């Protein structure tokens, strides 16, 4: 009598786990899915298709079918793609070679399968070759199986595809440092066959029997963290957009958008530019001064800096280091002599004044330090449950301005920050006045200071008691005028941003002397 399916799966899973040195994966489950698709991975959970296993058991033992499928799935987790950013990076390289998104996706999927299966073959005795011998194949599958014959030294009953399999067999699949080059060569060699397959299918979605590699295999947290990494690595917003825009729906599905997560409200579409600055800003954790202070002579944590080996552990800030001690990720507090805490207060709301005139770079094309700096400031206030208003200006007097009232909706804030006018630079002081509240919000100004009515702004800051953090991009006469005019004001802190590294040094709402004492 046939053993219970669940018992059999538990037994096979125990064997597979041991063979792969106990990966951190949950117990796989059965699904009553299609006969055509053997397995699915969603949020790290592996589901095997019972109809598929039943069908395949006509040719081989059920336990072998299950073991082969589990080897394949676990190898994806352990070797390739390993994580969401690697998946995206591989896709980006494939797209550079193949140009077409659909072809790039196919090439990436095939490449990840080859790496994972070859890893499994190298790792342990696996029934994968037996499984592939009986799997249905299209032409690309045949070429891939011909490759397996060469690089695994097995017979899968494939004849032909000599040239393609020979060229593919030269790729060092198991060397992850060279995957960038490898997938380029892989895509190049398979290009013709992929085009033919797409034409034959005429856009029909033919499922991969070994499971499709959609983004749902990753957890929402992985996708969030992965997007942060990709944003940090991308040379420009355009490069980030190039990778992300083809996965808009999948990213939205994978992350189950909500205000606490991605910050996109229901029904929102994914704006790659907004997402880029959002994820990039999450890499920086700017501190906000919250309490009245007085001179004490003692040291206090002032701003963050990257931690390096040899630096004291006691200064590490675990909250901004993602709980990890690793150079490049971990952040350390830099202490400065100065103030001590006095009476506690809440963080006030923040009014962000951002210059998007023609002298500033277009944030959709180039990395804009203005938008990034403003985004970091917005993040810092939102983290402390404060609200943020945005006044984005260029030729404000002729309509070149965008006002957003106080809100905690991140997407709306980022949309306002990323808007680019590209005209002249003139503020409407009455617009800023209109955004003043009784609570006296902090003001965060980021500009190159080439504002035609800079004198009006200086006058406003001289009259008002808001804590002002003014950040200037570059250096020019206007910057020097502003610095000189604001020097006596103790509620105004001025910072210069030359590059991404300057951003962590900004301390929001810093005051030289507490204003209300």
């Amino acid at each position, binding site marked *: 009598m046939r053993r219970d399916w669940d018992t059999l799966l538990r037994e096979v899973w125990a064997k597979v786990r041991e063979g792969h040195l106990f990966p951190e994966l949950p117990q796989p489950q059965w699904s009553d899915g299609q006969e055509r698709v053997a397995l699915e991975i969603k949020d790290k959970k592996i589901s095997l298709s019972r109809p598929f296993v039943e069908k395949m058991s006509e040719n081989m033992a059920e336990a072998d079918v299950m073991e082969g499928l589990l080897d394949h799935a676990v190898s994806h987790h352990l070797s390739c793609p390993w994580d969401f950013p690697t998946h995206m990076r591989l896709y980006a390289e494939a797209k550079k070679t193949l140009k077409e998104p659909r072809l790039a996706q196919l090439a990436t999927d095939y490449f990840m399968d080859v790496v994972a299966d070859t890893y499994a073959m190298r790792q342990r005795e696996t029934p994968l070759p037996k499984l592939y011998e009986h799997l249905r194949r299209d032409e690309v599958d045949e070429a891939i199986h011909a490759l397996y014959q060469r690089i695994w*030294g097995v017979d899968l009953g494939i004849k032909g595809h000599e040239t393609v399999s*020979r060229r593919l067999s*030269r790729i060092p699949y198991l060397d992850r440092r060279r995957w960038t080059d490898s997938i380029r060569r892989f895509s190049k060699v398979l290009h013709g066959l992929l085009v033919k397959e797409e034409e034959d299918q005429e856009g029909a979605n033919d499922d991969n029997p070994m499971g499709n590699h959609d983004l749902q295999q990753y957890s929402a947290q992985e996708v969030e963290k992965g997007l942060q990494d990709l944003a940090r690595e991308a040379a420009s917003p355009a490069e980030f957009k190039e990778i992300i825009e083809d996965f808009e729906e999948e990213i939205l599905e994978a992350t189950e958008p909500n205000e606490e997560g991605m910050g996109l409200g229901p029904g929102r579409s994914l704006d790659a530019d907004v997402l880029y600055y959002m994820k990039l800003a999450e890499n920086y954790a700017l501190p906000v001064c919250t309490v009245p202070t007085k001179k004490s002579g003692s040291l206090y944590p002032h701003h963050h800096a990257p931690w390096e080996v040899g630096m004291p552990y006691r200064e590490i800030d675990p909250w901004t280091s993602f709980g990890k001690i690793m150079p490049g990720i971990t952040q350390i507090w830099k202490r400065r002599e100065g103030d001590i805490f006095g009476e506690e207060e809440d963080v006030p709301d923040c009014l962000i004044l951002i210059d998007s005139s023609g002298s500033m770079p277009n944030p959709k094309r180039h990395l804009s330090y203005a938008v990034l700096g403003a985004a970091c400031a917005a993040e810092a206030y939102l983290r402390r449950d404060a609200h943020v208003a945005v006044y984005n200006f260029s030729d404000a007097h002729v309509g070149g301005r965008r006002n957003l009232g106080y809100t905690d909706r991140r997407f709306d804030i980022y949309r306002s920050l990323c808007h680019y006018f590209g005209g002249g630079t003139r503020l409407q002081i009455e617009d800023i006045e209109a955004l003043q509240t009784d609570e006296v919000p902090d003001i965060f100004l980021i500009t190159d200071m080439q504002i035609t009515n800079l004198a009006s702004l200086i006058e406003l800051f001289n009259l008002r008691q808001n804590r002002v953090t003014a950040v200037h991009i570059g250096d020019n006469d206007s910057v020097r005028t502003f610095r000189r005019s604001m020097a006596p004001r103790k509620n105004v802190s001025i910072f210069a941003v030359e590059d991404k590294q300057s951003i962590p040094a900004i301390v929001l709402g810093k005051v030289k002397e507490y204003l209300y004492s």
Partner: protein
Amino acid sequence: MKNPFQDFRSVPYHKREIPLDRIVRAKEETLELLVQGYLQLVEEEVRDLVWLVEESKVEKAYNAAIKRIDGSLYDADDIDEFCALLDSSNKLPYLISGPAGIYISALVNRAQEDHIVLSPKDYERSFHFLGYKLPEGKTLVLQGDVGDFTGSGLFGGSLILEGSAGNWCGAGMMKGEIRVTHNTGQNTGEWMRGGEIHVDGTIQSVGTKFYGNTGYRVLFGGKIYQKGKLLVPRALVKEG
């Protein structure tokens, strides 16, 4: 007392070798040899990183390249991968299009295969001198645009260019055939001694100096066709 670590035990692990390891290792050894040969050629022939095209210098560089690769075992896939390696400048200290093209041509001419396909369209840089001295019995297919002196000194081989060539295409060719699906640049067929050049697109200009010039603008045994029509020699034109 129970040993709390008794469940922990050493698990013997033997790295399994699969044919892929051997294939990749062999390929990398071959590529390393080709790279070393190229670097030595560049070191010796182009010491000052300035390389002027002179017939004697080209000939000398080619002979030096042949000497470097003599006895090496490689195939068309190795040449293709070597070209990709040359193209990604971060992996090799420097690339000079002339000597690089001559070295690739030497590799093609000494390869085991008679029919070789290379894809310059996949490379960001353009190589000169591809197909230099291609011998009889060899066919070289170039997919994409190429640099200057393509097929120069052709020696009986068949060069098929699926793209456009730069200037001096087929310069000094002896025999054989060049087929260009797009355009050629200036001085096409300069110093041509024999063979045929077929161009499906436009020819910016044909060469004015021909081997054995006796006062007539005539190609000695060489013919240039444009879109199927004989372009040179159209007629004997008396100079002056």
